[in-house]
């Protein structure tokens, strides 16, 4: 029944597409320059966004640690479906040197728990730009630093990206930030300085770190010898002091290399013993990534990144956690006592339930733009390999823009590797998702 409902969603989307195609296929090429001039007339305000429908089918792994933690006292079967409806609204207003900008997400979803929803302000800030060399912004804004595609260890003042969907919009922090830019002739073409002030209180940026502190960060950017270089810095009482460096350069026109290095002082490294006890040890750690992007003559883009997370959970600690969950589940089955499972659930927060929780990852993506002369069609495959335990995810996807402003994406994510591994112990074995977005 559940699978039938999901299949019906996909089928209906296909039908809509089929009927839309001919309707938009009849247009003849003609234009009038004066019409174009009307179209490009500037207005002081702008508003846009997209409507989204996203049904998802989860194939549950009933033996996995995270399934036991979530569904230990209920049976939801071997699959779950979720129907997501979304509205992204973004806009701006410009007057003189000042402009206001906002981006919101409204979501409504239906799953085995019934209907739910939320509204988030992702960004909303005032920007003053007296000239192109100087900009001052204040408000909620995403300050996205780093050169990596899937991982950004030097993004000191933003939330981590989801490596499964790294191009999705992030939720910002409340900041005051400026941009000072200077251009030169010679090998150093650009120098830019970006300071950031990030306050943390009980009500503002409360999930960033320790409250009641004002934190400072800065980025110094150079375009030197055709290479992007950044020196980055963060200090404050909410998180420990950290230093960063990144670079990106085209070795050839179709071959780019990039990298990031973050040195984080006094990091609280976590370890988990066989009894499910968490201990922390303060030490300086390194996080770094090295990546390439390569474009073939037939328009296949390969993106490969190696990411080392020096503060991540090591293989033994992860195994301790998964075995502890197994024992806690057995105890629950024998006695009905779920306290050990509750303890494991708390333990997972900030450790194995976090994004990229372990030490070493390899990210691979190949996307083929418009194969076989099919315009606006891009198939791709993405894989993330946990190099510590050799578990992995594989995500094939198809993206098609059949008509202006309509985007269809069908993707499946399949998790491989067995017991006591990161991907082997996730809630689901596979996930199939259709995403339909109509932009306006």
């Amino acid at each position, binding site marked *: 029944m559940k699978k039938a409902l999901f299949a019906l969603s996909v089928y209906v989307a296909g039908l809509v597409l089929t009927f839309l195609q001919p309707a*938009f*296929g*009849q*247009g003849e*090429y003609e234009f009038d*320059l004066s019409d*174009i*001039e009307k*179209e*490009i007339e500037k207005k002081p305000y*702008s508003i*846009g966004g997209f409507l989204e429908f996203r049904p998802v089918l989860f194939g549950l792994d009933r033996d996995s640690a995270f399934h036991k933690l979530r569904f230990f006292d209920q049976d939801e079967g071997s699959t779950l479906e979720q129907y997501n409806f979304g509205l992204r609204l973004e806009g701006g207003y*410009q007057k003189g040197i000042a402009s206001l900008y906002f981006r919101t997400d409204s979501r409504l979803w239906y799953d085995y728990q019934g209907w739910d929803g939320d509204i988030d302000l992702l960004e909303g800030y005032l920007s003053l*730009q007296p*000239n*192109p*060399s100087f*900009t001052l912004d204040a408000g909620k804004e*995403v300050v*996205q630093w*780093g*050169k990596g595609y899937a991982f950004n260890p030097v993004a000191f003042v*933003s939330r981590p990206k989801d490596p499964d969907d*790294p*191009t*999705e919009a*992030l939720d910002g922090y409340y900041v005051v930030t400026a*941009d000072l*830019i200077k*251009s030169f002739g010679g090998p150093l*073409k*650009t120098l*830019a300085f*970006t300071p950031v002030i990030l306050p943390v209180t009980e009500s503002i940026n409360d999930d960033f770190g320790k409250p009641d502190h004002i934190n400072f960060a800065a980025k110094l*950017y150079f*375009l030197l010898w055709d290479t*992007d270089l950044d020196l980055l810095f963060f200090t404050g009482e909410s998180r420990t002091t950290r230093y960063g460096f990144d670079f*990106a350069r*085209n070795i*050839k*026109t*179709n071959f*780019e290399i*990039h990298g990031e290095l973050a040195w984080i002082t006094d990091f609280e490294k976590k370890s988990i013993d066989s009894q499910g006890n968490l201990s922390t040890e303060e030490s300086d750690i390194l996080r770094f990534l090295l990546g390439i992007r390569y*474009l073939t003559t037939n*328009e296949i*883009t390969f993106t490969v990144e190696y990411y080392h997370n020096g503060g991540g959970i090591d293989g033994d600690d992860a195994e301790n956690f998964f075995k502890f969950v197994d024992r806690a589940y057995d105890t629950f089955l024998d006695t009905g006592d779920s306290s050990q499972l509750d303890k494991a659930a708390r333990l997972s927060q900030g450790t194995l339930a976090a994004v990229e929780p372990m030490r070493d990852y390899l990210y691979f993506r190949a996307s083929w*733009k*418009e194969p076989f*002369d099919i*315009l*606006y069609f891009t198939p791709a495959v993405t894989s993330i390999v946990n190099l510590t335990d050799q578990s992995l995810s594989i995500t094939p996807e198809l993206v098609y*823009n059949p*008509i*202006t*402003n*309509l*985007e269809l994406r069908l993707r499946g994510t399949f998790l491989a590797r067995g017991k006591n591994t990161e991907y082997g112990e996730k809630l689901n074995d596979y996930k199939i998702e259709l995403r339909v*977005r109509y*932009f306006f």
Partner: protein
Amino acid sequence: MCLCLAGPAVALDGNEMLQKVDRNLNPDSFEMYRKLINIEPDGSKKEFIMFTVKKGRDQVASVFLSPASEKGRATLRLGENMWLYIPNVGKPIRITSLQSVTGGIFNNADIMRLDYSAEYNCEKMEQQEGLLVLYLKAKTRSVAYDSLKMWVDDKKLLPNTIECFASSGMLIKTLYFKKVEEFGGGIVRPAVIETDSPLYKGYKSIMIFAKMKKKELPDEVFTLNFLSKVESLR
């Protein structure tokens, strides 16, 4: 090697002629709007509108104004360096001149075109029935097309047709310059470029130019930090 011609096109050598063509196509520092139309064999089409600023021979920045799905995407080109800014991603990524941010036959090198004389040397020039034919060779291997054959109106000194070739000698695409218009400020140039390609049989892409005008632009406009704000120059 460049050959000189006598006659209406005056005694310019090929490279000087190419620089004249460049200056006739656009001023040294300017802004413009362009509509890109991709037409498929069944007649269906997709349209994009871009705002572009260019300064000197090799600094170009563009931002998409429509369609809604592309709005805010901005590209920057500094010589051989090219970046794409996607609003959701929030930071520019390096891209290559061979890719296409719009799909269709125009690639990034066409959309973010530098002066022809910045990327090509004229190796030979000849007269053919009221047109000059310039044989252009890329200065470096990083240029999108290895060679061009450019037919130039010998009175207006504006291109009429350009054939673009790969290093293998294969024809990649042909650009047709049409509808010479007065844009004001002494700018008189083709308002339309059509292109087709043997690699995309039956497909056609069109670029329509509007509101091109001279504009003094500081170099700081052509930087990664400013890329997300290019639209504020309108």
